[in-house]
């Protein structure tokens, strides 16, 4: 197997194996994770779309793989999913740009 890269699609299926090195913490994580994504004040379906957007914001290929499937399975269509990605991108872009105000403040502070 070619191991000269950091990401491998088949590793997603091995996520549960993190318990091999630390069972109690993994149990807590997966138990909590399962509850987070269950129907609650938000539906599991709504949470799936949020997860898809966040997956893009954190640029996690495993999460994008998992939640592209999950959101589509839960009935979101292509346009809805792309709009969710735009929401993530807009927040990321906005987060960079809003710091422009900080830059302006600094410049005003030091400029004559």
């Amino acid at each position, binding site marked *: 197997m070619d191991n000269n890269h950091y990401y491998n699609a088949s590793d997603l299926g091995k996520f549960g194996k993190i318990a091999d090195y630390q069972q109690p913490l993994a149990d807590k994580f997966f138990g909590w994770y399962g509850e987070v994504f269950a129907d609650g004040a938000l539906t599991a379906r709504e949470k799936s779309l949020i997860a898809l957007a966040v997956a893009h914001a954190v640029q996690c290929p495993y999460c994008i793989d998992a939640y592209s499937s999950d959101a589509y*399975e839960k*009935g979101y*269509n292509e346009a809805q999913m792309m709009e969710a990605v735009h929401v993530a991108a807009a927040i990321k872009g906005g987060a960079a740009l809003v710091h422009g105000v900080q830059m302006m403040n600094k410049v005003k502070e030091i400029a004559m």
Partner: protein
Amino acid sequence: MKSLHAQGSKLADSQQQLDILAHGAATMDAFTLIPFQQKIEQIGLYPLQPTAMNIFQVNLGKMCNQVCRHCHVDAGPDRKVIMTRETMQQCLEILQLHPNFTTVDLTGGAPELNPDFRWFVDEIRKLNRHVIVRCNLTIILANKRFNDLPDYFKSHSIEVVSSLPSYTRDRTDRQRGDGVFEDSIKALQLLNSVGYGIDGTDLVLNLVYNPAGAFLPPAQQALEKEYKAALGKDFGISFNSLYTITNMPISRYLDYLLQSGNYEKYMEKLLGAFNPAAAANVMCRNTLSVGWDGYLYDCDFNQMLDLKVDCTAKHVSMFDATALANRHIVVNQHCFGCTAGAGSSCGGAVTQ
């Protein structure tokens, strides 16, 4: 789109499908999974046996007005094989002698295309059995002679079960063909107009969801809520229950999986989602499936793979209730489809 049979596809041959399920598509042993038999041995379910025989499911033929991409029957307008009245008569004799079959589930193809469909339904109702018709909806609009089907169903107190893979046009038409969504909506409105799916009537209209792609169905209860909200809001349609059904990796859906490069991942997904509780509740344990030619099978999927019941009573003409009750259900790799997640059957999920 033509059936695999009309295309001369090698997948029209059930043995070819079984070979792929056993060894993968490309070369011998290109892709193998743990055998289903071994998987249910591990949970003490093998040999799998019937728990009851309540549902008598009859396939009236492969003829259909639609050509759906996922069809496990490889049905279509180019398929001409249908059940004869003589075989129907043999089915009626079995029903008369065996009151344990409380429900008769009629499927196809489009069962209504069989010229003896109404005669058969009349006779079954005379025997006072509950009748389910798996109606593809569009048949109601396909020809004037079918326009009265909603009234006919109503007058015979038939339960109608119909496929609608999505409450949106796009996904429905991708799976079932252009224009199917629009006609399905019209047909559902006609069924509603005679009382089907309406609160306060006892006319049951259930819908079926199949994934339009290489993935598993979402949770049945949550999806039912979404369907009810969307179909109610957009089209004023109401219905009773939604059944989520997993696509079996056979026939045209197997062809789709292979063509789209999804076969291996899909099989791994089914295996990864194996649920022992679903395995214990599989429908073959309380259903007997009759082919258009009168042969007997454990389920409609085994029927399409030509895996006849493993006992002496292989045909309606040789019906033997004891032999059938004691038989070992024939299992193969496609059975992972019925045991994944919440499980899958002709009545939807088999676990909560």
